[in-house]
Structures are given as structure tokens and as C-alpha cells.
């Protein structure tokens, strides 16, 4: 199914993927009483603070991420992905690492778990990172910086 006016969009796959992400976060919330925030869990796994969950549990969640992607990749026969150059990825990764620790979360913790809880902090954080993300892409496009 395609969206009229947006030939590139995949609304059904997007919605299905979103429901799976929501279920994943619900398993963490209702099963273990915690927020499925990837940046906090990643920080915890490598010993850089983050979530209060046991380190082994944080590792299991983090290992599950590529495992889940692998299952989809094998079931679908491949996943399209276009990545930026190594230097661009390094710069972006560094900024994402600093920003998510200072901002106490990323797209999952704030964007999914916090917004659905109607947390004011998470809504403000989500609006903020959406706005700067949109501005960054717009400015890079205006400057003719093609990264993908």
C-alpha cells in the first residue's frame, strides 16, 4: 500500500513496525517495570551509567536489537539501507552519544515511552530533537551537503 502523494512512504510496514516497538516497550514496562530507553540501556550495558536495570538485563535488551533486525532481514530477504560516510557517522554518533546522556533519553525513551505517558519532560525533549533534526537536514540540504 502506498500513500497518495508520497510514493516512497511505507505506511503499513511503518505502522506494523511501530506496533512491534510499542509491544517491546510494553513488555519492558509491564514485565520488568522499566522504560525501554535504548540510550540509557546501552549506557548501562557498557558501564557508563544510564538505566537502573541490572547490567545483564541491559545487555540482553541491546543484543536483542540486532537479533530482531536479523530475523526481519532473513524473513524478508533483505533490508534496504543507505549509510553516510565513516567520518559523518563518527561525528553524528559522537553528538548523539553526548546529547542522549545530557537529555536523559532518545527517540525510544522520550519519543515512545515518555510521550505515551504524557510526560512533559519527554514531550518537550521530543519536540526539541524533532525540531533540531528537521533544521539540521534543512540546513544541510540548503548548503548542498549530501551525506547519503
Amino acid at each position, binding site marked *: 500500500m502506498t500513500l497518495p502523494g508520497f510514493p516512497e512512504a511505507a505506511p503499513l510496514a511503518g505502522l506494523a513496525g511501530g506496533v512491534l516497538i510499542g509491544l517491546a516497550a510494553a513488555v519492558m514496562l509491564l514485565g520488568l517495570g522499566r522504560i525501554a530507553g535504548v540510550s540509557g540501556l546501552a549506557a548501562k550495558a557498557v558501564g*557508563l551509567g544510564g538505566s537502573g536495570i541490572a547490567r545483564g538485563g541491559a545487555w540482553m535488551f541491546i543484543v536483542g*536489537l540486532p537479533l*530482531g533486525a536479523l530475523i526481519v532481514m532473513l524473513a524478508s530477504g533483505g533490508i*534496504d539501507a543507505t549509510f553516510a560516510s565513516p567520518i559523518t557517522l563518527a561525528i553524528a554518533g559522537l553528538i548523539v*552519544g553526548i546529547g*542522549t546522556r545530557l537529555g536523559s533519553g532518545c527517540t525510544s525513551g522520550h519519543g515512545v515511552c515518555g510521550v505515551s505517558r504524557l510526560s512533559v519532560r519527554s514531550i518537550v525533549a521530543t519536540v526539541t530533537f524533532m525540531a533540531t533534526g528537521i533544521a539540521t537536514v534543512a540546513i544541510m540540504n540548503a548548503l548542498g551537503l549530501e551525506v547519503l
Partner: protein
Amino acid sequence: MRTTLTSLVSGTLFGAGLALGGMTDPARVRGFLDIFGDWDPTLAFVMGGAVIVMAIAWRIVPRLAEPIFVGEFHLPTKSDLTPRLMGGAALFGIGWGIAGLCPGPGIAALVIEPASAAIFVVAMLAGMAVVRLAEGTYS
């Protein structure tokens, strides 16, 4: 054991959802952020689906005396809007926009484009370490 397995199930569902929803493709994520150009709304469906399911989960929480597998809930209690929160979120958005990757998809993509994803993930952990070191210096 049950808690470890629950974490693995949660992470695996999460990674599958990211891949299925197209979030492990930086081109699609940047397409979503490109609202002034060739906008791709797919990510709005991903966010919408996830938020709807989680909104239901949050309504179940008050009916549970405790989580299913552990003794108590450990949920964020902060409610103050600080410069640190907003500055951090602003920085995160810039990094997200530059390469089209946030932490979850970056880690999930380790099986899709291992070399590229590894560079992003290692740099991200380095950024987290920078914050940790700076905080250690302050306190």
C-alpha cells in the same frame, strides 16, 4: 532468568519493529526529517503505532500492584524542564539529522551494515563516555 529472558524478548521485538518500520535505513529517517523537501511520512506511522500501544500499556500500570516479573516499578519521576534536558535533546536531534541514525536503529543495523553501524555505535558510546567523564570532574 525470567527477567533476563524478558529483556531479550523486549529487545528482539524492538529490533524487529525498527527494521520492519524502515528505521534502520538512514535514508528513510532523513526523508522523514526533510519536511521542506521530499518528505517521507513513514516514521510518523512508526511513532504513531508505538505510542498507541504504549498508551494502552500505561493505562494497565495503575491496575498492577507490581510488574509481572519483578517486585516494583522503577519509573522516571523527574518533572522539571532544565537547560540540560533541552540542550541535550537539541544536540541529539542535530546528530540524528546529520546521519539519520538514533541509538536503537544504530545498534540494530549492526547486522545490516556492520562496518557503518559499528562506527556510529562506537562514536556514540564515546560521546556517552565524554559526558560521564565530565560529570565525574564536576562531582
